[in-house]
């Protein structure tokens, strides 16, 4: 069981009233934010017929499944079944929820209750997520570092790279930059990150061949 925090998405990419897909280890997540701004990370599966909740829609403080409109409140408890408007849904109908916290513009998720708060990178905020078709270790190596949080040298603007393993040959790369960075500086970081992705993927192909 993962009791450490995993960087799963960026705060800017899940604005109020939206849902997005995410991953925690080998599990699919529905990450969503209510109209009032509350973030949640759930199993990406409606208990009724297994439909992905990340395809669902947010009305107010609840997430509804796109398939039959079953609606779930903040705790994951089902609060409405449209096919039976007069029925109070049984307590047993509940979507498993994961621990979630936001720091430095990053949405962190965990299975269980980590003992500490997620890492904060003072003065930095998340600005771009990319997926790389290479394992986390190869991405870390391309960044010239080790582990899952690397102070990256991608040009004149300092950056923090958070690497999220997504299986044996895929990773998420969440990039943080100084809050004060101008759009042009972020553009340059983006280009550098894509260059890094090309190299990591080319290296990966070379290894596989």
């Amino acid at each position, binding site marked *: 069981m993962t009791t450490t925090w995993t960087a799963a998405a960026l705060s800017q990419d899940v604005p109020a009233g939206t849902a997005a897909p995410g991953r925690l280890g080998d599990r699919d997540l529905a990450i969503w934010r209510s109209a009032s701004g509350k973030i949640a990370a759930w199993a990406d599966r409606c208990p009724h017929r297994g439909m992905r909740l990340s395809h669902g829609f947010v009305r107010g403080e609840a997430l509804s499944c*796109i398939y039959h409109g079953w609606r779930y409140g903040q705790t994951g408890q089902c609060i409405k079944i449209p*096919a039976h408007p007069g029925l109070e849904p049984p307590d047993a109908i509940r979507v498993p929820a994961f621990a979630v916290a936001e720091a430095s513009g990053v949405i962190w998720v965990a299975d269980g209750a980590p003992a500490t708060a997620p890492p904060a990178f003072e003065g930095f905020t998340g600005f771009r997520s990319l997926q790389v078709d290479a394992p986390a270790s190869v991405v870390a190596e391309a960044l010239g570092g080790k582990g899952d949080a690397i102070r990256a040298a991608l040009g004149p603007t300092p950056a923090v790279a958070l690497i999220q393993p997504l299986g044996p040959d895929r990773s998420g790369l969440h990039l943080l930059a100084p809050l004060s960075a101008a759009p042009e500086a972020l553009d340059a970081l983006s280009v550098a990150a894509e260059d890094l992705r090309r190299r990591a993927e080319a290296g990966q192909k070379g290894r596989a061949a």
Partner: protein
Amino acid sequence: MRHQWYPVGIAAKLPDSPAESLLLGERVHIGRAKGGGPQVTDAKGRALPVLTRFGHVWTTLGTPERDLFTIPEADQPGRRLVDVGTVRVRCSPLRAVENFLDIAHFPFVHTDILGAEPHTEVERYEVEIREDSDEVWATKVRFFQPQAAKSAGGGITTDYMYRVPAPTCSILYKTSPPRPGEWDVITLFVQPMTEELCQVWPWMALFDDASTMTDMIHFQQMIFVQDRSILENQIPAKLPLDPGLEIPTRADMTSIAYRRWLKRHGYTYGAQLVAA
């Protein structure tokens, strides 16, 4: 399920050179015999049994105990027979059938066509497994529909009956908008390619003198492709037959009976038996 008949092509549109496909994970080729009729061969090139019914070519990998089911209503004069065309879906063939048996999704997946909020309630209906014919039937199903068919002028409360005569085939009888006393026949015939991949071959026998054939084809393709993005995103991909993994309600009585009937007969290709 080897001893069942499955649809593999439209009789009027057989390919000139044999087309490769999959049936229950085994390679088959569908084409024309020397005389022009349908021919289906297995991976070893042996001719498989074929029959033509409901506009489609059917085959089997086994030795079916009985003839393919019939749909007597479809023989009524005045109906127009519609070969809708096939669509491939990355889902269990059983999930495709189960979705076809469901009405509660209409307001959310077929919005403003087969359903619309706030008309979401599913009233009680009747479901039985008919022992004489060994078929699943749901009757007295009613639902408010903004545009029930291409021929519908506006919203009507539509009456439905569902029938499952074979593990991957379902027939829907629904109020015919131009002839309220008669049933339109809409089928979903599913070719199980693998346990998580299938081709649907919808076919219809409708009372509709106003719409063009293309209009009717497009209406049904529209409906099915609205379902496709749902079917490709259900977890697990296979249909769970044991209770526990998914939570049904009274609106799902047809699905509950279908799952029970599948399990009773051991129709488990595309099913998940033990809750993960």
